[in-house]
């Protein structure tokens, strides 16, 4: 199947202040987003997320590499027809109302008046701005601007959505609503590529994640794989062994009520501990694999 987004060997540099040399910002990005995926693009400030996204939209010209959107070269106009884009910290014409902005966007896609009217109403409801569409954008709160930005990205019902920091400026309710909206878009077959550094939001919805640091992808994969391959340690909860017996059998750990919680690093070790527990007639109450969270992975990579 044709990939929704395919980036190969993307490199981009900016001229230095005096233009004497070029500072590399993207140093060879490769990634593929399959249709119907929610793809998280994660990285610390200044890692190159926005630069990558601008290259995807033809706002910046890559130094090297190529980008295909739904199989079409990202420099072609056609590639943008089925694309919805929410810029980072979007700014819209202050003198327009939300409805006028969406109408204007519809016109840019060459939508017919009837279709425009229908879609504008639909997306207003989707982003929770229905009833507030006559507000001038200059008078909108940050969260409302963010929603308006999302609405204009959705107007032509795009196949692929590219959202740069869509969660910024949203309160917890807004974040939950955005997550639900993104999930419902996924269920109707859309592809969503978004950048963020809010890890919980990623963990709750993405299929795949790419972590970009300093212009390079340091991790890329299915969220489950990234996280489950990264079991940090196991916790064995042992019952029916008193403290002294436990110490003698080499089962030292944290005592809680009449249980001992033992931290074990490897599966081998788990098995040998289980045998030790049985030898003193104890019982395993639980074995918990303690996984890395995205945050742990992120912090570890950033720290390198």
């Amino acid at each position, binding site marked *: 199947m044709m990939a929704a987004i395919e980036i190969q060997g993307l490199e981009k540099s900016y001229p230095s202040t005096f233009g004497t040399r070029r500072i590399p910002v993207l140093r060879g990005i490769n990634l593929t987003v399959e249709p119907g995926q929610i793809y998280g693009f994660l990285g610390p400030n200044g890692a190159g997320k926005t630069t990558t996204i601008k290259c995807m939209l033809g*706002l910046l010209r890559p130094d090297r590499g190529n980008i295909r959107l739904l199989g079409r070269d990202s420099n072609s106009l056609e590639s943008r027809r089925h694309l919805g884009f929410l810029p980072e910290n979007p*700014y819209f014409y202050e*003198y327009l109302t939300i409805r006028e902005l969406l109408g*204007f966007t519809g016109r840019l*896609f060459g939508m017919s008046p009837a279709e425009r009217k229908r879609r504008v109403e639909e997306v207003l409801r989707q982003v929770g701005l229905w009833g507030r569409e006559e507000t001038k954008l200059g008078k909108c709160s940050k969260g409302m601007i963010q929603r308006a930005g999302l609405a204009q990205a959705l107007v032509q019902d795009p196949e692929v959505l590219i959202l740069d920091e869509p969660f910024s400026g949203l309160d917890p309710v807004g974040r939950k609503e955005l997550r639900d909206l993104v999930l419902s878009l996924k269920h109707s077959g859309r592809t969503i590529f978004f950048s963020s550094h809010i890890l919980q939001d990623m963990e709750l919805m993405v299929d795949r994640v790419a972590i970009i640091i300093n212009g390079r992808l340091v991790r890329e994969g299915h969220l489950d794989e990234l996280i489950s391959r990264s079991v940090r340690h196991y916790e064995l909860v042992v019952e029916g062994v008193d403290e002294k017996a436990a110490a003698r059998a080499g089962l030292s750990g944290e005592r809680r009520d009449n249980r001992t919680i033992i931290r074990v690093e490897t599966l081998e070790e788990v098995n040998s501990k289980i045998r030790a527990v049985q030898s003193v007639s104890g019982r395993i109450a639980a074995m918990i694999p303690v996984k890395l969270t995205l945050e742990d992975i992120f912090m570890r990579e950033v720290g390198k």
Partner: protein
Amino acid sequence: MKILAIARNTFREAVRNKVFYLLLFFGVFFAFSSRFVSMLSVGDQQKVLMDVGLASIHFFSVLVAIFTGINLVYKEIEKKTIYNILSKPITRLEFVLGKFTGLALTLLVALASMALLFFLFLFVTTGSFAPRCLIFFGLLYIELLIITSLSLVFSSFSTPILSSIFTVTLYLVGQVLWTFQEFKTRLHEPFSRYVATALYYLLPNLDKFNVKNEVVMEMELSGGRLLAAAAYGVVYVAALLTLAVVIFRRRELN
């Protein structure tokens, strides 16, 4: 039509930015002028009023052209609203043409309103109607289109302050460009003559569009001259827009 969508939005921005408040200034200014003129002897009234009216319309409309041209294009880039346009299936050519059309419409409305006020005051003060002034307005409109294209070119790569300085400078040079021909005959060194000739053909020769004296003094105006001016204007605007598109195509939007 995508170009029209951009044009419509540009016009709407001009309206909501209260560009047309400038017309109020013109109205007040012209009302005072006609009060003053009505104290003159009847024979001179019409000529003086026409002279004052056309000169002030020229001044105010050039102001609108420079101000809106630079402001509306630069703001689009500076405030990054241009992302919302260029991330859609819109070419840079469509963007430039859309902006230009919107600005042209803004100038048309501004000029037409001032012309209407002018004819009204002229009629009320002197009881006469001077249809010859329409020739002046027609040529002035072409001049305004050149100025707005100039501002489009400059603001496609420069800051508003520099763009204003460039545009105003070229406007002023354009008013006196005809002197270059005189000037050239006094130059003896061939190189300087080439430069003078090149500049004469390159810079906008805005004097071609100023027929105020001919209109006011009821001097002969040949159709050939008007046609040549119009053709010059069209070619010049087309060249400037092409240049703006070339610059925009190369430009990255950070």
